[in-house]
């Protein structure tokens, strides 16, 4: 029981660290990295809480593996979009941020 909570709390810490980085940084790549750290934290919370004393719950595990693949694809798509943005504008941040 407490072992599962350690995973969930690590996920909470990762999520908050990612949130901090996401708000503080302006560079799009740093924001993408921070967003991925937030996502990893959310996955860790889901996996950690899937062990609640009634045995391991396979449903959140299946959800997390789905989420990981979608996160990889969306990260790659974000990188493609960022490169186009940089080539088009020469900026590494968004105008409304500054």
């Amino acid at each position, binding site marked *: 029981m407490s072992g599962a*909570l350690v995973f*969930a*709390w690590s996920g*909470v*810490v990762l*999520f*908050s*660290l990612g*949130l*901090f980085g996401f*708000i*503080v940084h302006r560079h799009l790549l740093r924001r993408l990295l921070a967003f991925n750290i937030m996502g990893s934290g959310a996955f860790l*919370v889901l996996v950690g*809480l899937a062990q*609640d*004393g*009634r*045995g*391991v*719950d*396979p*449903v959140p*595990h*299946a*959800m997390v*593996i*789905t989420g*990981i*693949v*979608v996160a*990889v*694809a*969306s990260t*790659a*798509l974000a*990188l*493609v*979009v960022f*490169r*186009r943005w*940089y*080539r*088009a*504008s*020469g900026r590494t941040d968004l105008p409304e941020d500054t």
Partner: protein
Amino acid sequence: MKPRVIFVGLLCLAVAGALGWAVLERTLPAENLPERVAEAMPQSGVDHPITAVLLNFRGYDTLLEIAVLLLAVVVALALREAQPDRPEAMGLENPLLRAVMAWLLPLILITTGFLLWAGAYQPGGAFQAGSVLAAGGLLLRLAGVTTAWLDNPAVLRTGLAMGLLTFLAVGLLVMLPGVPFLTYPVEHAGTLILLIELTLTLSIGLTLISLFRLTPPYADDPEEARDGPASRNGDTTS
């Protein structure tokens, strides 16, 4: 330190505290999902609960996830600039990499097949196998091996869409006897899931490789973009 950073730091600490408290004080879900999955396992056609949830009990989620993957790669393809795929510019100048690849590639393919097959009774399945397959493809590309066959639009599009189309076709065909969408007949569930997973593996691997190929490591300066690609490639092509 800027006051803004301190403010955001305090805010995120508060978020962490609230989330940690919520994790500690959570209530157990009313529905006992592990028990219900264990009860339904004999009808699923596979022996591993996560694979059963992914491809049978909650097949809808996985179907839509594959659709999201396809959407991501289609958007990335649409945003691609008309730049030639030059594997020789991509490859690392490292003869050792090619030598190691000759050893690694068969192992990668065997691991892909094993993970795909193992998904029926232990951790594994289409996503893990597809990721390993994509890693093999990326290694090939880093070693400078040409992947020009992926430039053929028909081959690329068929490969990318194959997983989703097979999944959809199976889900629709099982409706013929009058059961709901994606409800596999119990006696054929194992075979159908394996067929879906096989095509999903190939499509996921191809999707990840294509996404990687769409961001070739050329100089990205806006000045060069303004001058046009001719000056960018001028040193090698002319």
